[in-house]
């Protein structure tokens, strides 16, 4: 719209007013630069020359870890580390040469550590060597004039008081990896050189244990000496954890498994508290605390038995005859068998055109449930499995928690495998055939369970049908505890039958019976090599020996502890696993003052 003459002057006046306002603002900005650059310029020049402002991390002390009685399992000890400030180094290579020679460490190691900080700004000191001795600290401090790029920092070192005895549960720390740094999300701010939990409790509860690092903004002079603190955001210590572990029981279990391959799990069946969890062979987590040496690492990963693996949760095997406790519960609950129903065992039975053998070739004669369990008669359970069918067996196995991770607070837990018709078609690509049902009835075939799952299932039998969540944190688990679809009477019958195993006439009476204690359990033997049947245990090469299982609970009335032993290549369950479980039960109930009733009876 053409501007009418009478408005033109007014409009132009308004434009001029606006241009004056803008000019004034620009003038004020120019005045600001005059003030900062000319009037205060000298002050800022000094600050710039001295490279003053620096953000320093205040490390939060990591939380300690205790056993159920409050005994210390992990603590922090002071340790010194060497850092390099690249912005102050005249020649970083020369600095590394100097440090490597003084500390007598491989230069490549220092260089590798320095490389981890390459994404950080130059002025951010990068740790290059940990665990300095006081003598080394003194030598370095003496050279601080010639080498202003070096800084010493007091950090904390993790000390695992019981080393290999608690290694798999507690885990260990390691330097944050490049991958972890790269996916460093918004919440935890890792810096190169930070230690993070790599395994076990240390990893699972890393965010809780590590606390919140604080930060200081400080002014330092050109030699790195602190002149003034500008702002401070204090560190918040990590949370101390109390575990369900019983240190004494844990140590005893570790002692019993030493020189063997396998694992022990002890649970309180009433709560799911993990009282002991041992995997053998073990390792010393203290090796990792100050950065593991290459030779130690090679030794660990070169060991065929993989000491780093937690066999209680990362390894699944056929349960063997221990599975009969699940079969018995299922048979009774489904009404397929009654306690007094008898089956005649003549050493084998032919089902689906295949002859299935009993463990005792001459047969057990006429057996009821209690006798079949005590003597581990396969023929009885073949017939039971045949009547139940795979669908019901699969359902009951899953009801006992097999085929899914238990949810314990440890990473990399395996789910195991419960086979069935759907699994056969979808996973295996080959239809289920009836003979497999018979194998599964005695815990063989594709069925695979972890020792921890086995302990949980045994706990469900022991506590009257609650599928507790095994947990390591004393404060307990919040996961739901589903009920087995089995009556209390049924489970009492199963417990009675399992008591027969360690009583006269049972498979484990001679090897595992405890005078003065009524308890129950079940042995299991997993065939490793079919070609070795008939060859005595001692005459087989180690890798061809059978695996030994034992799952037990005690006392018979109101059980307070469940012990599961899995001894890889340990032979028969009755000789390779039951005695270990028995020894651990004796320890638990025989501790001075711990169980007066038993001590008195002995």
């Amino acid at each position, binding site marked *: 719209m053409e501007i009418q003459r009478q408005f033109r002057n007014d409009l132009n006046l308004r*434009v001029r007013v606006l241009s004056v306002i803008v000019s004034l603002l620009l003038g004020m900005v120019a005045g*600001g630069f005059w003030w900062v650059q*000319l009037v205060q310029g000298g002050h800022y*020049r000094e600050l*710039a020359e001295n490279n003053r402002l620096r953000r320093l991390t205040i490390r939060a002390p990591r939380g300690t870890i205790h056993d159920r009685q409050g005994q210390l399992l992990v603590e922090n000890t002071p340790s010194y580390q060497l850092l390099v400030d690249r912005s102050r180094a005249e020649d970083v290579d020369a600095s590394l040469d100097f440090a490597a020679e003084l500390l007598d460490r491989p230069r490549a190691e220092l260089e590798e550590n320095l490389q981890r900080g390459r994404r950080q700004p130059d*002025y951010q000191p990068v740790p290059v060597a940990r665990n300095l001795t006081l003598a080394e600290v003194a030598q370095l401090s003496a050279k601080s004039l010639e080498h202003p790029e070096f800084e010493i920092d007091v950090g904390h070192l993790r000390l695992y008081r019981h080393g290999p005895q608690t290694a798999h549960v507690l885990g260990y720390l390691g330097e944050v990896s490049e991958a972890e740094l790269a996916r460093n999300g918004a919440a935890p701010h890792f810096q190169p050189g930070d230690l993070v939990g790599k395994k076990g409790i240390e990893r699972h509860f890393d965010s809780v244990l590590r606390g919140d690092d604080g930060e200081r903004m400080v002014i330092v002079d050109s030699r790195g000496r602190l002149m003034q603190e500008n702002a401070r955001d204090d560190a918040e210590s990590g949370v101390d954890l109390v575990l369900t572990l019983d240190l004494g029981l844990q140590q005893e279990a570790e002692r019993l498994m030493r020189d063997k391959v396998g694992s022990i799990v002890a649970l309180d069946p009433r709560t799911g508290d993990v009282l002991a969890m041992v995997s053998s062979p073990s390792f010393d987590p203290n090796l990792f605390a100050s950065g593991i040496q290459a030779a130690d690492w090679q030794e660990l990963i070169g060991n065929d038995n993989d000491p780093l693996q937690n066999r209680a949760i990362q390894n699944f095997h056929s349960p063997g005859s221990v599975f009969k406790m699940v079969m018995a519960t299922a048979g009774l609950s489904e009404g397929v068998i009654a306690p007094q129903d008898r089956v005649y065992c003549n050493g084998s039975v032919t089902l689906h055109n295949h002859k299935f053998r009993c463990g005792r070739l001459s047969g057990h004669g006429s057996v009821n449930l209690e006798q079949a369990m005590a003597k581990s008669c396969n023929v009885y359970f073949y017939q039971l499995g045949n009547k139940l069918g795979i669908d019901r067996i699969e359902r009951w196995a899953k009801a006992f928690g097999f085929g899914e991770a238990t949810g314990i607070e440890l990473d990399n837990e395996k789910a195991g495998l419960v086979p069935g018709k759907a699994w056969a078609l979808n996973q295996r690509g080959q239809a289920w055939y009836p003979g497999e049902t018979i194998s599964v009835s005695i815990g063989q075939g594709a069925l695979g369970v972890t020792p921890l799952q086995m302990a949980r299932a045994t706990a469900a039998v022991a506590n009257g049908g609650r599928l507790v969540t095994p947990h390591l944190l004393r404060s307990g688990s919040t996961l739901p505890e589903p009920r087995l679809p089995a009556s209390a009477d049924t489970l009492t019958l199963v417990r009675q039958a399992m008591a027969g195993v360690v009583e006269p006439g049972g498979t484990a009476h001679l090897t595992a019976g405890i005078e003065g204690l009524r308890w129950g359990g079940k042995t299991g033997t997993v065939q490793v090599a079919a070609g070795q049947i008939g060859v005595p245990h001692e005459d087989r090469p180690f890798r061809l020996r059978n695996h030994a299982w034992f799952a037990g609970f005690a006392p018979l009335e109101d059980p307070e502890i469940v012990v599961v032993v899995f001894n890889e290549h340990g032979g028969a369950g009755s000789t390779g696993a039951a005695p270990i479980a028995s020894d651990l039960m004796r320890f638990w109930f025989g501790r001075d003052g711990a169980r007066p009733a038993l001590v008195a009876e002995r």
Partner: protein
Amino acid sequence: MSGAFSFSEQRPALRNVTGIDWALVAAALMLALVGLATVNSASAELAGNQLARQGLWVGIGCCAMLAAALFNYRTLIEFAFPIYLFGLSLLITVLLVGRVAGGARSWLGYAGIGLQPAEVAKLTTALWLASYLASIDRRTLGLREIVLSGLIVAVPIALIALQPDLGSAAMFVPLLAGMLLVGGIDRKVLVGGLVAALVLGAALWFFGLHDYQRQRITSFLNPNADPLGAGYQVQQSKIAVGSGELTGKGYMQGTQSQLRFLPARHTDFVFAVLAEEWGFLGTLAVLGLYAMWIVNAFRIALRAREKEAVLLIVGLVSLFSFHVVYNTAMVVGFVPITGIPLPFLSYGGSFTLLNFAITGLILGIDAKRYVNA
């Protein structure tokens, strides 16, 4: 040949080019060159090739400036409302499918080429506001017109605040203020409004708010940084600027910048690099170039024939000036940090393009002043 015909049809436009305001062009080009040099210095320690990318954007920007100058701005005024709606639709699109950068969902991008719709919306909003205010045929604006103008601006502000990019959203306020002032707001209303806002704001800030609430507002304006972080940035920027003193440390010699103390040194804090390396003299020279751009743009407004043209220029110059004033004041530590770039100097495609387009638009308006459209 038809080509000869179409060429002759272009003649009026070509004639317009001869009437160009060369001082405005020179200011824009010199600022862009200073920008390239400073970005080069500031990004010396960074990965990627910022200089080449920014150079490409300046080249595209020059083309955009030429195109905008040749374009008949009356067409834009005529279609101001659909264009405004188009700007809003871009803002809505970015909320739905935009990419997140620096905590805000602010980018529309495809195959490595990105666009910030907020920059486009500044232009489209100024356009419709100019067309609306010019249509009011009175000496002073009534309350109804003021409220309506406020609404025109409030819609894009709200959409941008949702990203959330408070800094960009705030830039619409000076745009509105400048255009209302020239559009005919009553002096008493203006002065009264300003005084009331200042007094109320100050009273609220100093007496009405607790410390933590103030801090919350500060960190709301700057969501990326904790208080410690923001303090660090301001402090480092002031050290860079101050240590430049009268003559500076020399090109590529700024210790603050080259030693990586200064965050965002090639984008929002590029002026700190310039101030450190060229000193107060360099600062004054560049502020002088900005003044040259602003003064010439205002002169064009004074001689424009149409009210729409005057208002459009005023809106664009207000926007431009506020960017300059706020960014430089932020660099020297006078105002809180928000993500507001410096025209022609800060590294960034959309914003560079916007400033060249604004310059071209103003040139085009000027060129049409003798023509009976």
